[in-house]
């Protein structure tokens, strides 16, 4: 992983004061050291090293089968690593069964006990800790209020809606005040609207409790919205770790650029690089690409330029010739209300995605199907990738 230092990076919603990972003196709460896990010869986790800090909302993001759930289960104790070490608060977790680990998990299926009422589900872990009865009662009441389920204490899980069940699962997992909460695809079963609401609730809850959250998800939006940092995984390995804006605006590979959000990737050859600018020749753009980039590229090397659709401007009038300019024809238009996505067929035959925020209700001349258009983007709009 290369940490890119781009002074102009828009760091978006990141809590800029919270960055324990950047503090060399900080000790991580959880540390994975070269962890390997195989199932029947298939390597699910392939040499992962990862630090997660107290108070962080950390996301493991990747497609299904990338090993993210296995990594979480290694921390919960449901799997044991074939090699490597997992430590929690400095303590090696090797040989420690799940019931003795101070982490709790919220299961993708919720795994609510069907024979127990909501309150007894929430009290389950507390009882197991040997907590006094009145203390359990007050903690359960507190949890019910926290997840806004007061009044449903005596319901059984099958009498609840999907969203309510999700809250019970959450309350049950945080009730014993674990050192860390593990969330395995916590919102996958909810519909879109509820999922978006719950993402913000999870963030608020994490802030309120000051608890460390580790979320496993395949939904990049979920990871982007909730997490302080995201680890993007592929085939058992971590490809990039960074804040949401880092992985979106400064992906370190075509895989990450493509996995997170929409992207246009142009292949080209480096013609010039001086540590501030890279110039690339490409079949896609007659004027080549001119990009602000501090990486030094070897002249003649193949590189890829990744440009997000929303950073590409669509012009109906021909702009002056120069770099970062492509001509094409509107092939398709996707109107989403807040955004409009244009699919533009370049002269080379490639189709490029450009997106525009619909900031105004009325425009003089809307872009239409089959319009001849020119696409341009700024010198700092794209990222040069070498892998």
């Amino acid at each position, binding site marked *: 992983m290369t940490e890119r230092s781009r002074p102009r990076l828009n760091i978006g919603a990141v809590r800029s004061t919270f960055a324990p990972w950047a503090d060399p003196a900080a000790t991580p709460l959880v540390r994975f050291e070269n962890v390997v896990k195989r199932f029947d010869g298939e390597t699910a986790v392939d040499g992962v090293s990862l630090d997660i800090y107290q108070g962080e909302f950390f996301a493991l993001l990747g497609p299904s089968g990338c090993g993210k759930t296995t990594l979480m289960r290694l921390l919960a104790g449901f799997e044991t690593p074939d090699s490597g070490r997992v430590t929690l608060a400095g303590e090696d977790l090797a040989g420690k*069964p799940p*019931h003795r680990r101070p982490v*709790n998990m919220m299961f993708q299926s919720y795994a609510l*006990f069907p024979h127990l009422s909501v309150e007894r589900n929430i009290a389950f872990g507390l009882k*197991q800790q040997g907590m006094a009865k009145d203390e359990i009662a007050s903690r359960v009441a507190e949890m019910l209020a926290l997840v806004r389920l007061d009044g449903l204490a005596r319901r059984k899980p*099958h009498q609840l809606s999907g969203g309510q069940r999700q809250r019970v699962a959450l309350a*049950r997992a945080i009730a014993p005040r674990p050192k860390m909460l593990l969330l395995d695809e916590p919102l996958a079963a909810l519909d879109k609207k509820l999922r978006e609401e719950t993402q913000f609730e999870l963030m608020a809850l994490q802030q309120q409790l000051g608890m460390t959250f580790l979320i496993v998800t395949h939904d990049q939006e979920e990871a982007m919205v909730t997490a302080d940092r995201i680890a993007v995984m592929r085939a058992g390995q971590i490809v990039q770790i960074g804040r949401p804006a880092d992985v979106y605006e400064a992906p370190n590979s075509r895989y990450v650029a493509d996995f997170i959000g929409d992207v246009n990737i142009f292949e080209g050859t480096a013609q010039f690089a001086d540590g501030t600018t890279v110039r690339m020749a490409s079949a896609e753009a007659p004027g080549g690409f001119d990009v602000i980039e501090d990486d030094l590229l070897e002249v003649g090397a193949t590189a890829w330029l990744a440009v997000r659709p929303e950073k590409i401007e669509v012009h109906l009038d021909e702009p002056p010739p120069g770099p970062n300019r492509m001509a094409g024809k509107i092939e398709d238009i996707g109107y989403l209300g807040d955004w409009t996505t244009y699919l533009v067929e370049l002269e080379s035959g490639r189709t490029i995605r450009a997106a525009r925020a619909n900031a105004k209700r009325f425009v003089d001349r809307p872009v239409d199907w089959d319009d001849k258009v020119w696409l341009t983007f700024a010198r700092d709009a794209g990222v040069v990738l070498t892998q």
Partner: protein
Amino acid sequence: MAALAPFLWLCLFFLFPFLLVAKLSLSDTALAIPPYTPRIDWSAGIAGLKTFFAGLDFETYARLTTDRLYVAAYLSSLKFAAISTGILLLLGYPLAYAMARCTPAVRQALLMAMILPFWTSFLIRVYALIGILKPEGLLNAALGFVGLGPVNVLNTETAIYIGLVYAYLPFMVLPLYAVLERQQHDLLEAAADLGCTPFQAFWRVTFPLSLPGVAAGALLCFIPMVGEFVIPDLLGGSSTLMLGKTIWTEFFANRDWPAASAVAIVLLFTLVVPIVLYQRQQAKLMEAGR
């Protein structure tokens, strides 16, 4: 019309015989063979019906309560059924649990082993048990081989328990297996995650969730065992007191059909409670869709 068919079937093969037995139980005791009084005098019309109903009485039932033999047989039947059900639970639960937890290939083999004896006649299997349990049988031969015994098992209560447990084991294991096999594995992971050792997880999650299976298995065994006839008759010897045997004796040895019918009716009503319980349990399972 099609909806009426099962109803007619039930009337013909359940309600009609039941009414016949009920009538017999209310008739006057007489030696030998039917008809038993009162009879309906069809020629007298309504008046004949009236005389008929006036002639029915609970005399036989009264006799059942006063004769200690019937009370003893009744209690003894309940005892045999209850204790056997307990033994079946203790044996069947671990068996069902193991079946639900093992690999699919082993599970298939175990299920097959459980069901295979059913392809043999029940009577033959009971006779085989006699062959094992009799004084010069396989059991004593085996015991003698290791320098123990001989034991006298046949024609004792122990033999009845062995027979009942052997014959009814699948009826206990299969419902238990069904609920245990359906249980989500992630519930156990959740329990472990919340601080349960595997043993605690069993008692706090697995066992309570298997209670419908326990109830179904227990009732499925208890109900027919109360009225069981063949096993106590063949394995328990002549002195065994059980309702099934009592009914047989009254019918075929004493030729006292009203008494036999009354015992049968009492047995039926005793079992109505657990049968209704069982039906409700099943309905609940169906409703839960699990």
